[in-house]
């Protein structure tokens, strides 16, 4: 199949059996690849009610048709599973070089099934696939472990590895790769850890089949030229995602002290030019990327190397914790990466704990003796490690803010900032209704990657609640994640503003199948509805209550900053949902109707 590796690799960790099957043409036709394969295999093969940490859950790792090709951003790998954090759908997208290697090894997806009785790593070298003993690696941080695998097998091997966080099954443990990339959210690392898979180590030297090589070379070069001609390429390379830090602070989107405000009075120490000057050494990119957003850094204060911090980490481990020193944030980033836990969820958990402490709901007796005021850098460093080891106070935080606040009670759930149990990423949404709706309806929980609409909110009116805003969020949700389905990165389109039709010429030439963006968006719509049905199937009584955001965004106006005194009304939260369900063709309670499912050819799959 042109554009594909060709095979699905299944690894049964309980029995040790390893099998390969042809990548199904009809699944490739209807779900394309990447996140689409993840959603399909998740719904079809993980039985209803499966324990996310049990043998029936699967970790589905997929590349897409873009992966490993000469297309800007051809380096994203999807990790899909039933989430131990939320109990629903989890999909995390990891950059770097892993996805390309999957294709070069003649594969499209790797599906981990069952549970191993002892620590193993999956070794893939072209057609040679083996489960090997991982006891000498188990317990190691991700940085040391990846270094060891590379020294043993060679630089041409790509490594995806968990740290102590995944080994200890922290709800938001992540999977790490290439010394700085993660499949971050939803606990995909916990699933890999409970299955006792320390790492996947892969090398491939096969060529990826292409339908029309000449047309592909022309189209690929045209995409690179468009990126190189983009007027803000240099600025994007210089700052990466940190380019928005100062602006988010200015418009009230920078999460500050557990999202109690959207501006941080000490934020200047976190801004992009300060970071660039103080710590950045290399602009590090993913496979095929002409606009490397990775800011590989060295902190002189702490002497450590880390890729980042990216904007999300600056928000959640910086301003959200009242920390204004970019070097401290870089160090916290490194500690989280090495431990293998998601910086966004960890920052939320620690921020929640700090608010509990400041309100006197938790005292230093509860917090292992830490004086857990906002701004406490040393406590933040220590807690990251404790969360990864589920040690002391870290054990409570390792379950995520929803469960932690349920356990503590005393009204702490009012400031547990999450949707569906997934902690909110780094945009404060006190008064930005499209972005708030984006967080409410994102298919994995409160994450921004599906739909980012903050400038749009500012353009048309922050507090406006109109059908056009809802339509915009829906369009973004159908379109943006298509890059995850294709196994590539959206940021060249998103940040550099290159013409999206340039991708069509390249993808047509690679796959030999003509699709325009309407066709791709329909696939996006199909996946969106399928994953919604997964939530409905797995969560008893799943309905619109699970789309309601944290009360912080409809009850507590910030007392300072750009959004001082501004808050969304709960009536508007419900109006947004009413319009959203209507435009999606869902019931008033937020479930896809049978007509909607039929129109997307999903009736049989979800029967």
């Amino acid at each position: 199949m042109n554009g594909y590796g060709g095979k699905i690799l299944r690894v049964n960790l309980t029995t040790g059996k390893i099998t390969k099957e042809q990548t199904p043409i009809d699944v490739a036709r209807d779900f394309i690849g990447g996140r689409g394969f993840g959603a399909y295999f998740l719904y079809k093969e993980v039985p209803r009610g499966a324990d996310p940490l049990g043998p029936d859950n699967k970790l589905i790792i997929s590349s897409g048709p873009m992966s490993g090709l000469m297309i800007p951003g051809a380096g994203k790998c999807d990790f899909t599973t039933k989430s131990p954090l939320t109990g629903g759908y989890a999909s995390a997208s990891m950059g770097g070089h892993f996805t390309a290697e999957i294709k070069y090894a003649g594969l499209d997806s790797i599906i981990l099934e069952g549970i191993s009785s002892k620590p193993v790593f999956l070794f893939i070298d072209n057609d040679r696939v083996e489960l090997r003993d991982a006891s000498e690696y188990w317990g190691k941080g991700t940085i040391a472990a990846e270094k060891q695998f590379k020294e043993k097998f060679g630089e041409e091997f790509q490594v995806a590895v968990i740290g102590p966080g995944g080994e200890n099954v922290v709800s938001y443990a992540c999977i790490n790769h290439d010394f700085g990339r993660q499949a971050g959210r939803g606990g995909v690392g916990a699933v890999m850890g409970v299955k006792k898979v320390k790492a996947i180590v892969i090398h491939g030297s096969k060529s990826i089949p292409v339908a029309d090589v000449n047309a592909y070379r022309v189209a690929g070069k045209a995409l690179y030229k468009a990126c190189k001609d983009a007027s803000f390429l240099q600025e994007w390379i210089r700052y990466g995602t940190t380019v928005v830090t100062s602006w988010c602070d200015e418009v009230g989107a920078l999460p500050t002290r557990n999202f109690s405000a959207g501006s941080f009075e000490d934020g200047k120490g976190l801004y992009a030019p300060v970071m660039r000057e103080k710590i950045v050494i290399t602009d590090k990119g993913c496979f095929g990327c002409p606009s490397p957003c990775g800011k590989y850094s060295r902190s002189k204060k702490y002497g450590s190397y880390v890729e980042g911090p990216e904007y999300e980490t600056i928000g959640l481990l910086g301003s959200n914790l009242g920390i204004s020193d970019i070097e401290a944030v870089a160090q916290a980033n490194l500690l989280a990466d090495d431990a293998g836990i998601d910086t966004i969820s960890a920052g939320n958990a620690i921020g929640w704990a700090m608010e509990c402490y400041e309100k006197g709901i938790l005292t230093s007796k509860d917090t292992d003796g830490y004086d857990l005021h906002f701004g406490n850098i040393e406590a933040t460093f220590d807690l990251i490690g404790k969360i990864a080891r589920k040690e002391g106070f870290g054990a409570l935080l390792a379950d995520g803010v929803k469960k932690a606040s349920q356990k503590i009670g005393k009204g702490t759930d009012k400031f547990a900032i999450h949707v569906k149990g997934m902690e909110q990423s780094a945009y404060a949404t006190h008064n930005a209704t499209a972005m708030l709706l984006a967080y409410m309806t994102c298919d994995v929980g409160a994450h921004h990657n599906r739909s980012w609409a903050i400038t749009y909110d500012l353009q048309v009116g922050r507090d406006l609640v109109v059908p056009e805003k809802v339509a915009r969020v829906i369009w973004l949700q159908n379109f943006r994640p298509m890059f995850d389905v294709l196994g590539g990165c959206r940021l060249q389109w998103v940040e550099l503003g290159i013409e999206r039709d340039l991708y069509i010429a390249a993808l047509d030439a690679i796959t030999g199948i003509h699709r325009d963006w309407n066709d791709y968006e329909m696939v996006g719509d199909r996946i969106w509805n399928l994953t919604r049905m997964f939530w409905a199937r797995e969560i008893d009584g799943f309905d619109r209550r699970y789309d309601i955001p944290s009360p912080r965004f409809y009850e507590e106006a910030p007392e300072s900053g750009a959004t001082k005194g501004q808050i969304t009304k709960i009536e508007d939260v419900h109006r947004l949902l009413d319009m959203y369900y209507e435009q999606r063709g869902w019931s008033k309670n937020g479930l896809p109707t049978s007509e909607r499912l039929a129109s997307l050819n999903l009736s049989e799959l979800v029967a």
Partner: protein
Amino acid sequence: MTAIIQTSSGLKSYLDGKGEFEVIAGRTVFDTLVDLNIKPELIALVVVAGEQKSKDYVIQENDIVKVMAVIGGG
């Protein structure tokens, strides 16, 4: 005394499809954006000669001022 404003692609609709506009120097970036009917709060980044400037920066003669809106986001 004139200078040039260059905008990121998402802002072209504000400048009749153009990406570049000649402006009078000597005024702040903020005021100049207001005159161009671009809401200053939409602009995430202001760069002059490779350096980030705030919106209070006073535009000098012959400056090329790049203003970027983050349309697509993260």
